[in-house]
Structures are given as structure tokens and as C-alpha cells.
């Protein structure tokens, strides 16, 4: 009898609180959101930053990539290919961002980035230089400003 009541209560509480989720779309827990990361085979370290803050959904804006070797020395003359998208929605970027300028000192201008919605986006880099070829996938969660 008591067990039944407990179950009823738990179910009721669960039902009442189910409206609290915004979408099914919360990024998986424990996602690495660092924008400074070593590439997969540790050949490089990349540091990404948006050159516009806050990031506005549906607006094309530029980013900067800082590329260094494992010792922190800047790498110029690398070719960096950029791809990505939303893994939970199975679609890519709405635009085709690309590196347009080598800014020197390991810095590269990445233009044409656009996020068409909030949520979890992957930014995939493929880097080629005299040091070799390596990749890294970074995670960016675009969120609406939440007022408390």
C-alpha cells in the first residue's frame, strides 16, 4: 500500500515538473566547451574567439584562430579548413566559413561564421602545415541571454 502511494507521488511530481524543460535539445552533460584546445594528435594548440560579442543568432560575424605548436610558438603559413554544424539536428553551418586572412603571429581571420539557431554547435578544424596534418572539434553552445 505504501509502495503504491510512493509511486503515485513520484509519478505525479515527475508529471508536474516535465514542463520545465525548454527543448529536448540540451547539450550532452560534460561537453568540453573550452575554446583553447590541443589538436587530436597534439601537434598544435588552437585558441578560438569570436570577434563580436554577444554572438547574435542569424548574423554573419568574424572569429579569430590563434595557432601554436605544442610549445606555444605561433605557426604562420598553415592552411586551416573549417567545417561544422549541429550534431543533434544533423545539419551543417548555414554558411561556409573560411580563413580569409593570415594576420601574422599565428593569428588567422575566420570569416562567414553564422549560427542560425541557439544550441550546441561543433566547429571542426583541419590544420595542415610543415608540422603535419591534425584535426580538432570544438564545441560552442549558443544560448539566449537568460535574465534571472
Amino acid at each position: 500500500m505504501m509502495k503504491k502511494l510512493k509511486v503515485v507521488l513520484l509519478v505525479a511530481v515527475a508529471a508536474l515538473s516535465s514542463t520545465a524543460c525548454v527543448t529536448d535539445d540540451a547539450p550532452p552533460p560534460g561537453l568540453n566547451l573550452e575554446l583553447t584546445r590541443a589538436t587530436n594528435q597534439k601537434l598544435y594548440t588552437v585558441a578560438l574567439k569570436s570577434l563580436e560579442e554577444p554572438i547574435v543568432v542569424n548574423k554573419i560575424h568574424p572569429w579569430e584562430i590563434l595557432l601554436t605548436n605544442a610549445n606555444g610558438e605561433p605557426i604562420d603559413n598553415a592552411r586551416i579548413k573549417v567545417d561544422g554544424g549541429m550534431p543533434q539536428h544533423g545539419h551543417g553551418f548555414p554558411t561556409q566559413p573560411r580563413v580569409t586572412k593570415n594576420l601574422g603571429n599565428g593569428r588567422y581571420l575566420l570569416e562567414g561564421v553564422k549560427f542560425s539557431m541557439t544550441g550546441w554547435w561543433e566547429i571542426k578544424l583541419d590544420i595542415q602545415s610543415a608540422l603535419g596534418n591534425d584535426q580538432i572539434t570544438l564545441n560552442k553552445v549558443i544560448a539566449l541571454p537568460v535574465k534571472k
Partner: protein
Amino acid sequence: MKKNTKFKLALAAFAAIAGTSSLSFSMGGDWFGWFDSWSDSERAVLESMHIGKLGPAPKDPSNRVEDMRAAVDLGKRIFSDRRFSANQAVSCASCHDPGREFQDGRPVAIGVGTGSRRAMPLAAAGFSPFLFWDGRKDSLWAQALGPLEDPVEHGGTRMKYARLLSEHYRDEYERLFGPMPDLAGLPQDAGPFGSPAERAAWAALSDKARADVTRVFANMGKALAAFEKTLYYGESRFDRYVHGVLSGDKAAKQALSREEKNGLRIFINKGQCVTCHNGPLLTDGHFHNTGVPPRVPGKPDPGRSAAIAKLQEDEFNCLGKFSDAQPDQCGELQFLATDDPRMAGAFKTPSLRNVAARPPYMHAGQIASLPDVVRHYVDAPKSALGQNERKPTPLSEEEMRDLVAFLGALSGPITEIRPEK
């Protein structure tokens, strides 16, 4: 207190709350405010959809005259002028009826002939980076030129239009764009998309004549675009409600019925509608394949994927010589995604503002009513071309009904906001 008693008390408390709530709901009330109870992240979503977040349309650097009152006035007059067609009976307003949400209520548009897609509504079109269902034009003015030379829409040629402007709108044109070229000795009708005779006449012209006439044609598009850009959506009951939720204004919170509030909740949560129908226009301005059945069985419309080449080759695009923009102002074209396999069978997400006033739905009017649209998303059928992005979304009959009710609450006026001078 004994464990047994504690449980009995908790159960009694729960029963009391549940009981009085159902009593309150069944009496048409919401005594505990559950229908108005939104989490912080839900409130952020609601706020992002509010009409107040829209602001003015972004500037189009490729159209030098878009902010000029004289261009708006000229564009508005040409918009309803039926002489700008092969049969003197079709104007922009024929399919974009100002009295009907600037569309025509038909599954496919009918100009001098029958089109293959639905006329799109024009309010807030200035906010879209790409125009048409497949986004094959990258500005409002380039879009306006498409139907004018399309054989089944207006069916005319740019030479004919230059002559009409010269005859009926010379002063207004010259005030904005400088002297009209001399058309003496040129044919009545000539253009690259006309009949074989019209195309031959076009090919026979000098380079200078072709450039002059095309420039007049491009300028005409820019005046039309200036007018179209003045069209905005006004406040709906949904906006009133969101204002109520954010400010605590009790009267404003009554702007939606219980069913509509529940529909809104489904729209931003379970239904996953807001992932594409986001922002104050309820569109992400992007292209998605949602498994809409082809208008002609066996002949699916390729949508966005077929538009990429057209965009790149369009002489009126942002990088073309009739554009007033610098190349570095043409971000959408410069960074166009050209190889996205998801674009096969993908179409532009339309704005849902005033959607209840605009049946039938989808790119060729394939879905007759909003209840049918909701059922289409619930079922998420396999796509005839490419892949449906959506998965089946189980909703009860009551939830579907509430979602349709919410969509009806997105209706508001269409306003014209003309520039000062």
C-alpha cells in the same frame, strides 16, 4: 510523526492541489497560474520571439536608394501598375495583393500563365538574406526583377519596362537615378529571358544598349524593393501575452486563452517548432527539408540545392555590376554554403506571423490547413527527395488542436513605415 502518517499527509496535500487545480481548470480558471508559469530559459525564448526584438530591417548596401522616400513612392506606384506585363493585366499586386497579406491565397501563383510555386507574403521580407522559396536571389531588388521577366508571371522584357518607365515615370526615375538612356531606334520588346524573337532582338543590340537598358531595369527593382522594405508586422496577441509574462502585467497575460498558452508551450518544447521558427519573425531564414510531398508526384522540387548556381550566376547579385555594394559587404554570397547535401529538397522557413490568414501552406500550397500542417509535422513522412530533418513527433489530438490555436494568435496588422525623406 510516523512514516505512514507523513505519506498520508503528503498524498492528501497532493490530492488537494491536483483536485483544486482540475476544478479551477474545468471552471475556465488557472488559480495556481500554471498556464503562465515559465522557467527562466523559457522566458528567454519567449522574449526572443517578441515583435519588439525585430528592430528596423538591416540595410542593404547593394541598393543605394532603399531609404529614399522618392524611391518608396515610385516603387509603390509601379507595384500596382498592370502595364508592366505581357498582357497589360498583371502587376506585382496581382499575386502580392496588399489586401490579402501581399499574397494570393492560391497553391501556385497565376500570372500570364500558371507558376510552379506559391506567392510568398512580403511583410518583413527585408529581413531575409535570400528571397524566394529556394533563396535564389540575394536582395529584395534582385528578387523583384525575377517575376517581371518570367514567362509565366509578368511575361515582359526589360526593354519594354524601360520604355514604360520612360513614358510614364520619367521625372520620378530621373530624380533618383539620373538621365534615362536614349531608347530611340531600339526595339519595343527585347530581353534575355523572353520569346525567341525577344531574345534575338536582345542579342542584336550593342553592348552599350544592353548595359543601359539593364541598368534601368535594375533601378526599377531598387525602387520596388524600397517600397517592399517599408512593410512590417505589427503586434499580435502573442506579443501582448509575452509582454505580460515578462512584465507581470495581469491584463496582458489574459491576451491568450488557455488552449493558446498550452499551444505555445508545445511550440517551444515538445513540438520542437521553435528550433527553425525562431526569433521575432518566427523564422531562422534558412532552408530545411521537412518532407513536404511534391506538387507533381514523381517530380520533386529540388529547392535550395538547385538555387546555388542561380545565385552565383545572377547578374543582379551583390557582387554584380548593378549592385551598389562593396565586395566585402556581400558576406552571405561570399560565404555561401555550396555543398550542403541537406539542401536537396530544402525550402526557406517562412515567417509564422499572420500564418492563419494565409492558407494553403508550403512551397506549392500542398497542405491546405493549419491542422493538416501540424499533422504533417507529427507524422514526419519520408521525403521524396533528400532527407526529412524532422522525426515523428507524437502529439495528442488535444495538443495538436492547442498548437493550431496558438498559431492563430500570431496574427496582427501589416504596417507601412515610410522613410522621412
